């Protein structure tokens, strides 16, 4: 159905479609035939008899049937955009489109994914796009579903990730059934998410729908990438199409913007002349080629690299990777270039959470700052995810991954081999080695403890997957970043970075979508690894059911510290400021009494699971068993009871 799908259908095919629907209706539910998509109609012109039949008055029975509705056309639009998946929690505001996706579209390209909460339906798309590098769509119930899904849209917005959010609605008041349908309709459904979407529209005709949906995709995938929304009017979707159907505009291939050559040349000169250049990365790399270029740039310059971890930007064990020594290298820097790093201020300044906020530059006076990226200029004003303003000497607007190859060539011709540079590289390499050994030593503490130490947890997981084609799907901050410190991370898809808006629940929902994208990788065999905090997971435990239902293999390991641990520390801080007991910080933050049995929870949703495991010696074997299950094509969960961080 995907390839060569004819998107220029006409009303006269209705007879063919109705015939197919009739055949399907006659079969038993669940039979293979009932799920077979309708046969692709022939493209022959209508015969005179057909034309005559269409103009004749309809018999009574026919009057209650629709030949082809707007929603069928909408499916054609989605097919033309080659959207692989539409994730949804069902809702009546888009029932027409739902039915068309399944029966008319044959539930393929796009395939409907069943989610049990809109946060999952939207958030899946976030993780999916970070692996597949293309958007998927979510189909969200008007008003109420939007409110459930909106945080996940915000996370994607702040993380500069493309996605198409389709919102159900019923615009004409006379079309709304009294009751729920009024409560689920809005004048302007996208209003509530407009501050964190790049573009939206509420089309009032099919032609308008086609044009705006194609445009929405174009805008979402242009840099800086971000979510977009299309409100799907239920009355437009459900109404029979009368007359000629509008053609569907083509989605052109857009090239990412490259920085201005003159400015890149200037940057190359500044970097080449630097005595201690530092490269700061955040959401900088998307592909293996991009990664190779980033490594080549650092090596050509002999620059220290500070990876803020918004994506997998630099090999973890490359000697120029000085991320855990950021303070030391930034203090030594005379030129710093941030590439797609939108919190340069927070990187080059220390900022202490004390009663009196203290912030000091880490860099020395006179340091030259260069910024290269597409998110230096905020697109919206209300939500403050753009971080603090940082003045720079040279601000180059351009996509990092696209501009770096050019910058690299310029650097190569500007940089001279010098003993100073070689000396610097040697020193950085030695510092890396010392740091690596220090971190390995640090990981030994609490190694045999129960609850399980976090370094032990993370390294046991590594032991279980390191000979596989593994890919981490969730952020590592709450795991003291042990994976980026000690795992050998060499491929761009092996770590997806932080969640953008820091909205709790991201790790779980994005991991599900990332796992789906990993499943689709040609050749297969990837082992998605989601190490999830209990607080994050309980925002969206139903990811397990969706993973089981759609057979999405993924290894889920609960970093179960039985608390919203970050918040305990915040409340403690407040108590300490008043010299009031810190013990009270457990109230409202601890997830104990009763303890949640995650293995039981997983099993109830059809996911194989083991736990709770609090004996570190038992963790490795359990993980091996779980990895075997994942390799057989299913999700598996291990509940590890852990130290806080």
């Amino acid at each position, binding site marked *: 159905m995907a390839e060569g799908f004819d998107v220029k259908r006409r009303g006269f095919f209705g007879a063919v479609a109705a015939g197919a629907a009739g055949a399907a209706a006659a079969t038993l539910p669940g039979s293979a035939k009932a799920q077979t998509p309708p046969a692709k109609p022939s493209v022959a012109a209508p015969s005179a008899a057909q034309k005559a039949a269409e103009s004749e008055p309809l018999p009574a029975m026919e009057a209650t049937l629709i030949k082809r509705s707007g929603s069928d056309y909408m499916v054609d639009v989605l097919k033309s955009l080659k959207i692989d998946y539409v994730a949804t929690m069902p809702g009546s505001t888009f029932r027409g489109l739902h039915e068309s996706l399944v029966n008319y579209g044959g539930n393929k390209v796009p395939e409907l994914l069943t989610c049990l909460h809109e946060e999952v339906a939207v958030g899946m798309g976030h993780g999916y796009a970070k692996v597949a590098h293309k958007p998927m769509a979510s189909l969200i119930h008007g008003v109420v579903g939007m409110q459930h899904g909106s945080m996940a849209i915000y996370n994607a917005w702040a993380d500069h990730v493309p996605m198409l959010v389709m919102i159900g609605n019923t615009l004409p008041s006379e079309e709304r059934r009294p009751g729920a349908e009024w409560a689920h309709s809005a004048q302007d459904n996208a209003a509530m998410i407009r501050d964190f979407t790049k573009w939206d529209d509420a089309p009032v005709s099919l032609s308008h729908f086609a044009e705006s949906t194609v445009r929405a995709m174009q805008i979402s995938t242009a840099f800086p990438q971000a979510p977009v929304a299309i409100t799907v009017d239920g009355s437009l979707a459900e109404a029979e199409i009368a007359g000629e159907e509008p053609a569907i505009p083509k989605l052109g291939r857009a090239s990412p913007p490259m920085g201005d050559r003159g400015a890149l040349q200037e940057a190359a000169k500044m970097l080449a002349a630097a005595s201690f250049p530092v490269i700061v990365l955040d959401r900088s790399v998307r592909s293996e080629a991009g990664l190779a270029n980033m490594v080549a740039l650092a090596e050509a310059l002999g620059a220290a690299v500070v990876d803020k971890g918004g994506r997998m930007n630099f090999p973890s064990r490359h000697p120029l990777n000085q991320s855990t020594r950021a303070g030391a290298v930034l203090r030594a820097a005379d030129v710093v270039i941030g590439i797609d790093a939108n919190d340069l201020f927070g990187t080059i300044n220390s900022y*202490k*959470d*004390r009663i009196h906020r203290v912030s000091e530059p880490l860099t020395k006076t006179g340091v030259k700052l260069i910024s290269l990226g597409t998110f230096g200029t905020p697109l919206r004003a209300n939500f403050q995810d753009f971080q603090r303003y940082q003045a720079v000497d040279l601000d180059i607007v351009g996509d990092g991954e696209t501009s770096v190859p050019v910058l690299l060539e310029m650097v190569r011709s500007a940089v001279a081999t010098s003993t100073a540079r070689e000396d610097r590289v040697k020193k950085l390499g030695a510092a890396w080695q010392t740091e*690596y*050994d220090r971190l*390995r*030593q*640090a*990981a*030994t*503490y*609490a*190694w*045999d*403890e129960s*609850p399980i*130490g*976090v370094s032990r947890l993370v*390294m*046991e997981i*590594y*032991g279980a997957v*390191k000979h596989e084609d593994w890919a981490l799907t969730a952020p590592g901050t709450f795991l*003291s970043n042990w994976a980026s410190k*000690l795992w*050998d991370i060499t491929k761009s898809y092996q770590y997806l970075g932080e969640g953008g808006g820091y909205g709790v629940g991201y790790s779980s929902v994005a991991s599900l979508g990332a796992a789906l994208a990993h499943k689709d990788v040609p050749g297969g065999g990837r082992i998605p690894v989601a190490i999830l905090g209990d607080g994050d997971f309980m925002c969206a435990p139903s990811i397990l059911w969706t993973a089981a239902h759609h057979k999405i293999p993924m290894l889920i390991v609960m970093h179960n510290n039985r608390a919203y*641990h970050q918040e*305990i*520390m915040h409340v*403690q*801080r407040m*108590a*300490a*400021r008043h*010299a*009031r*007991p*810190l*013990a009270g*910080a457990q109230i409202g933050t601890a997830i104990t009494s009763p303890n949640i049995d995650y293995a039981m929870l997983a099993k109830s949703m059809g996911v194989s699971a083991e736990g709770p495991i609090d004996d570190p010696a038992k963790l490795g074997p359990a993980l091996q068993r779980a990895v075997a299950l994942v390799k057989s094509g299913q999700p598996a969960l291990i509940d590890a009871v852990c*130290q*806080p*961080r």
Partner: protein
Amino acid sequence: MRKITFAAAAMLLASPAFAADAPGDAARGKQLFVDQGCYTCHGFVGQGGPGLRLAPDPLPAEAIAAYIRNPAGEMPPISAKLLPDQGVRDIQAYLASVKKPPKLADIPLLKAGE
């Protein structure tokens, strides 16, 4: 004895006399380490996390008291009202009782280059 960090050493010099009292009680110290919330940032056995590693081989009680009552960094100040000298001594005794971790060389999962 572990090397005293610069921050902790500076505080030690500036601190008022540390009340000489009963020796530390490790069992009580373990309870205090949890109740006073030290474990959240330093881990249940003081292995470190958002806060520094405190054990094994902890700082002397005087240095701990001096640091926590007037921390130089992001650690929230823990006043003597919340944790009197005796409590600090107990915590120090607990941290001193934490057994050493296995040797790095004996942990295959932490082998260099693995």
